[in-house]
């Protein structure tokens, strides 16, 4: 890995292969960032009331039923 980097350092910056590799990595990183943002956006939404209502009912059902 390191050797490869050293070797490429001497090469002209417009080496197309290097550029394509960097570019692909950059794009994957960008997709990763957006993916997390998309997920976190839903995580940060307020939880609809039904969720807690349903859980409360399930809890009461257990207490009342036994």
């Amino acid at each position, binding site marked *: 890995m390191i050797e490869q980097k050293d070797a490429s350092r001497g090469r002209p910056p417009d080496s197309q292969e290097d550029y394509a590799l960097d570019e692909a990595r950059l*794009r994957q990183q*960008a997709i990763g960032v957006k*993916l*997390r943002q*998309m997920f976190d956006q*839903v*995580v940060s939404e307020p*939880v609809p009331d*039904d969720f807690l209502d349903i*859980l409360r009912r399930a809890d009461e059902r257990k207490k009342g039923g036994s």
Partner: protein
Amino acid sequence: MSSGAASTDDVAFRQELVGLIPHLRAFARTLCGDATAADDLAQDAMLKAWDARASYQMGTNMKAWTFMILRNQFYSEKRRSWRQSQLDQEAAERTLVAVDDPEAPVALDELRMALLTLPDEQREALILVGAGGFAYEEAAEICGCAVGTVKSRVSRARRALHAALEAGAYDRDGSPAGDAMGSILADADRLSGAR
């Protein structure tokens, strides 16, 4: 056995479960696409987890445990009725196209649509590892498959997603595919600050 009063275990379990609801909703949303169906799924999973609390060992990874319940529920519902899943898919596409929030960045919209073009297993693996914060090993346990399988699903998903975004291979309902990758790059740059 326990007589009426909630045990301390139940209280602790409930508290942790409530804290996980936002994550269950986010995971369900990526599996279903459609927000309403996703909340139904997340509620079912939450109830299933609550009912099965006796089989959960406090102190182990509850997030992974509930995610496993949720995805199993998702796939068993899908198996139960293929037709229903077709309908869900159509609903998901309608919802996604209908998302018309001017505040929503274009890039996210494009990403959601491109994600829906992936096979369920690939989408699930990518979300668990790439957004849910799970290690490959945990994702493998959640999905009930080998670690190597998760790794290959994630890498296939990444490639396919990249290709879809570059090509605009998802259905953009008449409007031109646009530069999805370009806006994602710009947006990611903005989010992560100067690189």
